[in-house]
C-alpha cells in the first residue's frame, strides 16, 4: 500500500530530474577548462543539490548547502581562482587512466553497497530505531522547542557542535597565520643568504596597486637580467678555468 503510493508520487519525477541535472553539471565541470565557468557551475551544482535535499524533506541540510555551498564557497573559489590562471591546462590521456580506474572501482563499490542501504523513509532503518526516536520524544519533554534538529545540534550533541566551532575557528586561524588579514603575508619577501631577491609578488588591493605592479614588472625584469648576466659570467669563468686546466 505504502509502496504503491510512493511509486505514483510526483516528487520522484522531480527527484530524477534534479539528479539528471546534477549528473549533467558534474560532467560539464569535468569537461570544461575555463576556471570561471567551473566555479559558477559548482555553485549551480550546490544549488540543485539543495533543491534535491528540500524534496527529500531535509530542509536544514538544504539550507546549509544553499548558504555554504552555493553562496560562500563559490565566492571563496572565485577569490582563489583570481590568483591563478583563468584556464587550466589540458591533461594528457595517459595521465587520466589511473584516476578513471579509481573512479570506476569506487563507483562500483558504491553501487554494490546500495543493496544494503535501508529504503527511503524505512521505519526499521537505524536512523529511525536508535537514538533518533529518543531525541524526538525527549525534546518536547525536556527542551520545549519545536525544532528537534536545533535541540540535537545545540543541546544533546553540544560537544560535537563545540568541536565544529573550534574547527571553523582553527581554519580561520590557519588562513590568517598564512595569509594575514590585509594580505600582509604577500609583502613579506624571502631573502635567501641575506640577498634581497624579489619585490612582493602578491600586492594588496589598494590604490597604489598599479604603480606597485609596474614596479614589480621593472624590478623583476632587471632581476632576471642580473641573473642572466651573472650566469654568463659564471660560464665564462668556468671556461677560463677549463682552459687553465688544459
Amino acid at each position, binding site marked *: 500500500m505504502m509502496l504503491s503510493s510512493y511509486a505514483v508520487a510526483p516528487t520522484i519525477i522531480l527527484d530524477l530530474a534534479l539528479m539528471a541535472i546534477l549528473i549533467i553539471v558534474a560532467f560539464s565541470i569535468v569537461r570544461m577548462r575555463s576556471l*570561471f565557468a567551473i566555479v559558477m557551475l559548482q555553485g549551480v551544482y550546490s544549488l540543485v543539490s539543495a533543491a534535491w535535499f528540500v524534496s527529500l524533506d531535509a*530542509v*536544514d541540510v*538544504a*539550507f*546549509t548547502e544553499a*548558504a*555554504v555551498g552555493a*553562496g*560562500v564557497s563559490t*565566492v*571563496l573559489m572565485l*577569490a*582563489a581562482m*583570481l*590568483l591563478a590562471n583563468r584556464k587550466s591546462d589540458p591533461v594528457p590521456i595517459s595521465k587520466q587512466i589511473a584516476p578513471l580506474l579509481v573512479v570506476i572501482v569506487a563507483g562500483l563499490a558504491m553501487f554494490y553497497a546500495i543493496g544494503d542501504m535501508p529504503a527511503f523513509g524505512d521505519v526499521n532503518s537505524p536512523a529511525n530505531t536508535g537514538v533518533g526516536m529518543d531525541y524526538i520524544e525527549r525534546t518536547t519533554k*525536556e*527542551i*520545549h*522547542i*519545536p*525544532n528537534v*534538529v*536545533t*535541540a540535537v*545540534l*545545540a*543541546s544533546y550533541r*553540544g*560537544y560535537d*557542535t*563545540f568541536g*565544529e*566551532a*573550534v574547527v*571553523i*575557528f582553527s*581554519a*580561520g*586561524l590557519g*588562513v*590568517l597565520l*598564512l*595569509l*594575514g*588579514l*590585509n*594580505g600582509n603575508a*604577500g609583502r613579506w619577501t624571502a631573502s635567501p643568504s641575506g640577498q634581497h631577491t624579489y619585490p612582493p609578488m*602578491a*600586492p*594588496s*588591493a*589598494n*590604490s597604489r*596597486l598599479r604603480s606597485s*605592479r609596474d614596479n614589480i614588472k621593472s624590478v623583476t625584469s632587471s632581476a632576471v637580467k642580473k641573473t642572466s648576466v651573472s650566469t654568463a659570467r659564471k660560464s665564462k669563468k668556468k671556461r677560463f678555468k677549463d682552459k687553465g686546466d688544459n
Partner: protein
Amino acid sequence: MHDPHVILKVISKFLVPFIALFAFYVQFHGDFGPGGGFQAGVILASAVILYALIFGLEAAKKAFPPSWVRIGMSSGVLLYGGTGVLTWILGGDFLSYGVLAHDPAHGQHYGIIAVELGVLCSVTTVMIAIFYAFGSRQPEVDEDNW
C-alpha cells in the same frame, strides 16, 4: 564619467540590509524552523562579502573593520566554551544547560541561545576573514579582464 556598475550598486545597496536581517531571522528563529548559528553566520558574512564585491575591499573594511574579525573569531568560541564552563560552575556537566535557570527547560533555552550566538559570531568572522585574506592578495580586476 558615469559609473558602469550603477545598477549593481543600487540593487546591492538595497539588498545588503535585507540579507543581514534575514541572517538574524535565521539565527533567532532557529528554535522554530530550519536554521541556526552556522547558516545565519554564513548569510551574515555573505552580506559583507556582497558589499565588498560591489563597492571594493577598502569600503568593506571600513564597514566591517578587520580588527573585529580577530575579536569575533575568538569571542565566539569563548562564548560557546564559556557556557560550558558556566554550567560546570553551577554544578552541572559540561554543556548541560538545565542548571542555567530554575526551570530546566528555560535553562536549555538560554544555553541554546548563548551557544548559537557563539557559533554565529565565529562563523561570520571566519568567513569574512578568509574572504579578506584572499581578496587582499590580488589586484582589482579590470573591466575587460573577465
